[in-house]
């Protein structure tokens, strides 16, 4: 049935409008039709980018819920002063698992999932350039996660997601948790590197006819920078964790100060990866916002070239800012000054993006559908996170705020109000394409308001907590000043936030079967993925239109309108 609809589209549309006639494309010769396998075997053996994308997203979302539970347990412990609910050993394990899960097992793979599903559709390709490599990337990610979580059954890692040496060395944490963490970094790292190469090659070679670099959807631009950053940054962390592994088990002393090694070296290597990683997580989010805002403001994106160029600028600068995580280590003033400046300069391209997004709304007609709610939430609170980031870049101020709850608040504004809001916007925006059904708007808005209120309750007050002297990663605090009441507010907020996320999870599960049918283009969107039916057939497109702008679907809708008007006029000539 799906094939039939595509068929009629491709035969009738070009016949009424010459502009839509497709250019001959290379034929794919099929030597045999793969046997359709039953149920789960089909999923396990698939090399279809759409199925792999769905597996990525579902797995990442499950890890998101697990990481969320870990966060709630920590907030529960901190809900009261001198609480004894969770002992220090388990608390350190929780904070390590939470950070590692959210970064390596949720945000990055979630973005990779969106990329996997949407990238070929947005550029009019049949699949990714290397479908088998793509499947391999997914399985590496899943097994990385499983290896890491297996440590729950013996001894989870306790050194934080940063695993600073020498705390992470064998002398201080001899159990296998750190090793599980190392293997997680290796496996998910390989997964991401191969995924990134796949994205890059696909974008460079498989775009629809007419889709030059200036007509690439902005989400695809951010996937391109995401891929380049992954390829540049991940080998560093792979090398670093290998050195840590040999330090732990094979008698080397790369990070052991008593044998001439340097704990500072670990910090440099870690953050040389760690800071680009932050932009790896947020750049595709920027892309989602750049897709959602123009669709629901019914206006082209303001300053397409500036927004695309800003992505590239951010990616470049993100490789030059790593030591702003190390302002309190013994480094010279020249180093402090350099990294302060580079970190502040990155606010310029980020600011350009924010200004262009706001300008996209100007004189538009804003339709407040759920994806737009989350996109606007992103815009407001990501800006707050960006501004507190500039404050932290000023190193004398950072000396006070470093490693406190102020920093916790800052990066949660960037990663939860930023990346998670963008991911939720993406889920509500693309769910109809992926499943052919709409998510409930009512539940979506409830979820938005719960996450909005919960998030700000949790994290706004943490700025003050940090400035009042509460360091991060402590399992208890004394009953002095406002610490207890502020922590309690934060804990209550975190549970509201958790309920908000669960509402979306419920909405997704419910709507897969019961949602309203969506049709190919429910939002009247701009990009090519909406040209094909929802959900798209295995071959994505029977024919790909020639691309003439950044908004091919808008062009097609206009052409179809014009054509039907002409047809009508032919049938019943205007009475004169």
């Amino acid at each position, binding site marked *: 049935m799906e094939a039939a609809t595509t068929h009629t589209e491709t035969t009738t549309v070009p016949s009424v409008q010459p502009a839509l006639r497709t250019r001959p494309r290379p034929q794919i010769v099929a030597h045999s039709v793969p046997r359709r396998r039953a149920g789960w075997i089909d999923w396990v053996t698939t090399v279809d980018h759409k199925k792999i994308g769905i597996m990525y997203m579902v797995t990442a979302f499950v890890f998101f819920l697990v990481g969320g539970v870990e966060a709630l347990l920590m907030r529960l412990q901190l809900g009261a002063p001198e609480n004894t609910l969770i002992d220090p050993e388990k608390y*350190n394990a929780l904070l390590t698992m939470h950070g590692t899960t959210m970064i390596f097992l949720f945000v990055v793979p979630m973005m990779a999932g969106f990329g996997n599903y949407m990238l070929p559709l947005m550029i009019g390709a049949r699949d990714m350039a290397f479908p088998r490599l793509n499947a391999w990337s997914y399985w590496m990610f899943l097994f990385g996660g499983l290896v890491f979580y297996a440590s729950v059954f013996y001894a989870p890692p306790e050194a934080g997601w940063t695993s600073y040496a020498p705390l992470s060395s064998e002398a201080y944490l001899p159990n296998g948790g750190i090793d599980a963490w190392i293997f997680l970094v290796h496996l998910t790292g390989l997964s991401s590197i191969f995924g990134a190469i796949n994205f890059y090659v696909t974008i460079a070679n498989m775009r629809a006819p007419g889709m030059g670099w200036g007509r690439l959807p902005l989400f695809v631009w951010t996937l391109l920078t995401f891929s380049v950053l992954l390829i540049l940054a991940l080998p560093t962390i792979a090398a670093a964790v290998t050195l840590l592994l040999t330090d732990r088990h094979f008698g080397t002393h790369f990070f052991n100060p008593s044998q001439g090694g340097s704990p500072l070296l670990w910090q440099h290597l870690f953050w040389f990866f760690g800071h680009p990683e932050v932009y790896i997580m947020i750049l595709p989010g920027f892309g989602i916002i750049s897709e959602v805002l123009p669709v629901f403001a019914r206006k082209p994106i303001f300053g397409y070239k500036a927004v695309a160029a800003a992505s590239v600028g951010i990616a470049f600068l993100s490789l030059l800012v790593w030591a702003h995580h190390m302002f309190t280590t013994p480094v010279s003033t020249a180093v402090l000054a350099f990294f302060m400046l580079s970190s502040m300069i990155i606010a310029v391209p980020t600011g350009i993006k924010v200004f262009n997004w706001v300008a996209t709304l100007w004189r*538009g007609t804003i339709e407040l559908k759920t994806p737009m709610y989350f996109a606007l939430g992103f815009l407001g609170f990501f800006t707050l996170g960006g501004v507190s980031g*500039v404050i932290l870049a000023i190193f004398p101020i950072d000396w006070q705020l470093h490693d406190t709850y102020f920093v916790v608040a800052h990066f949660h504004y960037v990663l939860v109000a930023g990346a998670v809001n963008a991911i939720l916007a993406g889920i509500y925006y693309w769910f109809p394409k992926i499943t052919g059904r709409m998510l409930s708007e009512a539940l979506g808005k409830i979820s938005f308001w719960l996450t909005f209120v919960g998030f700000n309750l949790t994290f706004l007050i943490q700025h003050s907590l940090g400035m009042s002297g509460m360091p991060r990663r*402590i399992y208890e605090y004394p009953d002095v000043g406002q610490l207890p009441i502020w922590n309690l507010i934060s804990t209550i907020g975190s549970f509201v936030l958790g309920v908000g996320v669960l509402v979306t999870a419920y909405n997704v599960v419910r709507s897969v079967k019961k949602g309203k049918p969506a049709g190919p283009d429910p939002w009247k969107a701009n990009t090519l993925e909406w040209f094909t039916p929802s959900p798209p057939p295995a071959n994505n497109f029977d024919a790909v239109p020639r691309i003439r702008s950044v908004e091919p679907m808008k062009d097609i809708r206009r052409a179809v309108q014009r054509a039907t008007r002409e047809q009508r006029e032919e049938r019943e000539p205007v009475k004169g």
Partner: protein
Amino acid sequence: MPRALGARRRFSLVFAACLLGLLAFAAGASADVLSPESGGSPNADLVDTLWWIVFVIALLVLTGVLGTLLLFIVKYRARKGRVAAQIHGNTRLEIGWTVGAAVIVVALTVVTFIMLPGIKDPEESGGGQSASLAGAQLVSVDQPKVPGGRSLTIDVNGQQYIWRYTYPGGVYSYEEMVVPANVTVVLRIRSQDVAHSWWIPKMGGKMDALPGYTNYTWLKAPKPGVIYRGQCAELCGRNHADMVARVRVVTEEEYRAFIASKRQQIQQANRDATAQRQRLQPRGQGREP
């Protein structure tokens, strides 16, 4: 539809008012709710001043962006008969806000570097008396120089999970550091096991204690009779949260008395230990240290 719209707007307004009210309440509850701690040392006070300058600029930018965003959301809602203007961009505007953002960044940098010397470089000790403190300053090439030459250097050593302070002359104490008021104290921060971070919020920024490295900071407490509290700020293991630090500020006389009594205590303890060893050794149960 218009009624629903009004309800929603009313809700947003109430919500915004609640948020503002909460903020105002919090601000009233504690003066330091919107800025870092200060008052225990001139560098902390200067960081606080720098914070306020930066914070006001940041707040202006933030309210500007958020205000515009809210205005646009309300003003450009889809309504019957309204058509979106198909604008693709404006080069002048792009250049304008790029330059604008850059100017703010430059301004913040200039302010920071004007204030940096006062935060980073130790001040001259107050009082002006030439009376020597217990022990002269130990000279080191990379150690920050204190103008006037009258100062105190204390070694801060982080270890799981306690701070050890070594005063000039080898006297030491744990957890609580005793410093004379109005005297510049240079802290040499080291660690003997994992990474720690020295931080007394009211006495200035934190400095990491990394094994194999020496880090420096300084403080100058304004008046005696105060105890400033802080704790380790870098995850250092399971009892990281319990690795607390105190700085007790005393007069110079009290400081000298403290050093003298500490020295006596340590000597007494050493004598006791030696005596104990000698008592135990003939029985063959003691071990040479």
